[in-house]
């Protein structure tokens, strides 16, 4: 029957999720177009971003089509894939260094993508598989150690690149999943203490012994004291705040931001694209974006709670954690309330590996949603 076919389709597709996704993609495309318009290669960059969106539809569809429940049994190969992805830029002939970190995969000197991006999704599936084994109750130290063990491998490899920001994303993903997955409250306290100690250690140790690099130190310090490193991180932060604040209620108009078009704003199409939004569309525009994000999260949370199994629930929770953490760090950084890290803004920042990853993550949500009554 037509009616039941419609119902079946409606049951397989989360319409709100797709609506919010499309709105975000359109908003992001408009923003990238504005942010790159001042560059000589601006239109080529814009086309590349659109291409990234187009390519990203393939993994979206694939992830949607895959029966996620089957992935549970692929834990070993997934761990191997995760490690390979993260190590791949280190393999001679495949690496490409940009911005101080060897995080790109390249063949014949042509940059392909940042393997740490899909690795995030693989890690989400791994963690979901591991955590779901405990059926919503993780208490024993041995269990906790096992879960942490699966996390330490990718995070450790990421930190070796070194890419502290991405490493933190992995940790945040795991924390969100552990929250939903039933880790006992006191373990969060233990993790908290360990994180603080690790932070202190990173700060205290010289960079040769695994401590932070000078630029990383400055990025963190400038968050505490805006006067630090006035020509580097401090300048970026100051210009970002000026851009956003000067947008006022309704902004200067798309393409009319003086901070961005006159190059005061650094990395305006990537890490600081939110500052362009703030400057050109004002409070109205930034609230619209946060509202779209909120809609996305509410829908995703609905997917998470509606999953037929804990595994699917945890996958959705991992995706949400990834997005929320990246948004918090990225927007917070542009507002001067988070340290400066190279974490981009989902669906907004220029960069196709990132875009493809987020579309694939959306596909994973759709996969969980469409199989909530069984396959």
């Amino acid at each position, binding site marked *: 029957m037509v009616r039941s076919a419609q119902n079946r389709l409606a049951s397989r597709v989360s319409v709100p999720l797709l609506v919010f996704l499309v709105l975000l993609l359109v908003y992001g495309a408009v923003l990238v177009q504005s942010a790159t318009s001042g560059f000589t290669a601006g239109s080529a960059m814009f086309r590349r971003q659109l291409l990234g969106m187009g390519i990203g539809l393939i993994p979206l569809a694939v992830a949607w089509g895959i029966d996620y429940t089957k992935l549970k049994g692929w834990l070993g190969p997934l761990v191997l894939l995760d490690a390979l992805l993260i190590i791949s830029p280190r393999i001679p002939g495949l690496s490409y260094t940009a911005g101080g970190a060897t995080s790109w995969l390249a063949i014949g000197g042509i940059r392909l993508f940042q393997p740490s991006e899909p690795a995030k999704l693989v890690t989400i599936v791994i963690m979901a598989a591991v955590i779901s084994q405990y059926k919503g109750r993780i208490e024993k130290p041995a269990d906790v150690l096992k879960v942490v063990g699966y996390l330490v491998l990718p995070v450790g490899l990421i930190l070796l690149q070194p890419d502290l920001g991405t490493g933190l994303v992995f940790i945040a993903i795991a924390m969100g999943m552990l*929250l939903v997955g039933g880790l006992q409250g006191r373990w969060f306290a233990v993790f908290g203490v360990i994180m603080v100690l690790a932070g202190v250690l990173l700060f205290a140790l010289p960079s040769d012994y695994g401590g932070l690099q000078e630029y990383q130190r400055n990025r963190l310090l400038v968050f505490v004291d805006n006067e630090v490193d006035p020509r580097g991180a401090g300048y970026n932060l100051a210009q970002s705040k000026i851009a956003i*604040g000067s947008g006022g209620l309704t902004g200067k108009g798309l393409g009319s931001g003086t901070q961005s078009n006159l190059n005061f704003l650094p990395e305006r199409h990537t890490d600081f694209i939110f500052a362009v939004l703030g400057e050109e569309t004002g409070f109205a525009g930034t609230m619209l974006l946060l509202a779209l994000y909120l809609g996305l999260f509410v829908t995703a949370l609905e997917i998470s709670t509606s999953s037929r199994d804990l595994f699917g629930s945890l996958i959705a929770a991992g995706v949400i954690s990834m997005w929320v953490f990246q948004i918090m760090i990225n927007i917070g950084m542009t507002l001067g309330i988070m340290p400066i890290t190279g974490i981009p803004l989902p669906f907004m920042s220029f960069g196709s590996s990132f875009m493809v990853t987020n579309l694939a993550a959306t596909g994973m949500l759709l996969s969980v949603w469409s199989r909530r009554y069984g396959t």
Partner: protein
Amino acid sequence: MSTFGEQLKPRFAAFGIIVLLVLGALSIRLWSMQVLSGDEYAALAENNRIREYTLDSQRGRILDRNGTPLITNRPSMAVAVAPSAKNDDDLLLALSTLLDMPIQEIRDRASSLREEALKPRVVAIDVPMDVVAYLAENEARFPGVEVQTIAVREYPMGTLGAHLLGYTGEISEEQLEDAELEGYLLGDIVGKTGAEREFETVLQGDRGYQRLEVDATGSPRRIIEQVDPIPGRDVILTIDAGVQEVTENALRSALDEAHADDFTAAKAGAAVAVDIKTGEIIAMASVPGYDPELFLGGISQVEWEKLTDKDSEYPLTNRAISAQYPPASTFKAITGLAGLEHGVTTEWSTFYCPGRWTEMGEQWPKWCWKHSGHHNITFHTGVEESCDTVFYEIGYEFYKQGDEKLQKFAREFGLGEKLGIDLPGEVRGRVPDAAWKADYNENYPEYIKWLPGDTVNIAIGQGDLLVTPLQVASVYAGIANGGTVMQPHILSAVLGTDGVPVLTAEAQVAHEVNVTDENLAVMNRALMAVTDTGTGEGAFRGFDVAVAGKTGTAEVSGKDDYAWFAAYAPANEPRYAVSVVIEQGGHGGSVAGPAAREILAALLGLPVEHVQATDISR
């Protein structure tokens, strides 16, 4: 919801709350920054992108009465240093070697206060081309250093008229508070002295400005607004450059003359030439002089000390208006006219000069300069020969009559107060009276009382009487002009941009003296006799035009005598008055007189020749 879902409900709730908290915190921060502080950030953004540059206006020229340029402008290659470079010792050392300037001086200039905090400060002007080329080739080694073409003052006549023209320099904090200079900014180049200072607001013009939009590297993208500067106006002075030159040379010759007479301490002097009918100053000179070029781009500390050291004779002082001296016998013209007006004497009244005059009592004897005495002498001859006794008698009579009539008469000429010439730095001089003496000696009760000798001293131009050379020239101009003293001034006209005067100075009466034409005629005959057969005879021997003049030899405690000569000419139909004073120059007749002759010759278009005179009278 599945069973596991029910079990984990609190977990999902906590997860949802965290998501809401994150978005809520970001929203609050955005509200605070964009809505509450939006205007402040907007101002910062504007400040980022907009640079305002001032466009300096070309300073007006100063011309003499015939249109001859006295001060103009010329371009100069200047080296400017950004304030940020002031702590770069290596850079300063390299610049010091290159510019041949002390490091400290470069540092001081680079850190001088400016309205535009980041604008490079000019540290050296007239930089040689090889240095400019070196700086251009080694730009990277001199960060914050730039070569600019700036306009500076040019002095086509060299040091001529330096005192009355004045020099320019950076505005002082004192000047910044001057109401007349409202709108001036730190770092502005303004007139500091002389005509440059007096006519500053006319010469300066209005600065323009340019508002540019710049990008993050500071490169201009477009001009938002531009207001062109309005050049300053040209000013025409009453000065005649030719007469001025003769006047300055005459003063220098007078100094040589004094040295030849063994008055070796003579180093300074002043002279003024004025048109008696209009008050126009035709020449005004002061020696020693200075070179205004030294002030271009800021005078060096060493040079400044040379010009202001207490052993320097103060070459920056315009002695014609800023120095005051006892007028000595040049004052006898006033005492004489006062005596005639008040019936104390007539042209042919006779006096007896014993050489040593003791009318005030044997304990207070006064000497005539001619110790052997003039014996029987008329008033007319008393002026001609500058007999002190004649004027002691007149002064003593004024004392006895009371009411300070002599001082009051002197004040009618404008003595004891500023004449109000349009130049900065004029001093008042002093006409002493009982009230002044009581006030002056407040703490010395035994000196408070006004004594006969005080009036007697004034009568011969001594005592506590003080005048400026300008005042003496004005007094003689007043006598020549029938008792009307015209307002002395140096401004003739201000030119508009099209060269047509927008303002022309009018002749104004400054003082009217109550004196009859008959008495002026008496004085005129006596002053003519001075240059004909009297104390000025040597200086004016063979002069083609009749001159009414008076010598003066002022006694200054602890110094050699100061030589004076005051005159007007032609005596029958007067046009110009002059005064000359040579500090420690000796005798008026032999040192100041010949200088006055040269100045009058130049004024009247006669050949200028230096004569030797040997009069050693007063």
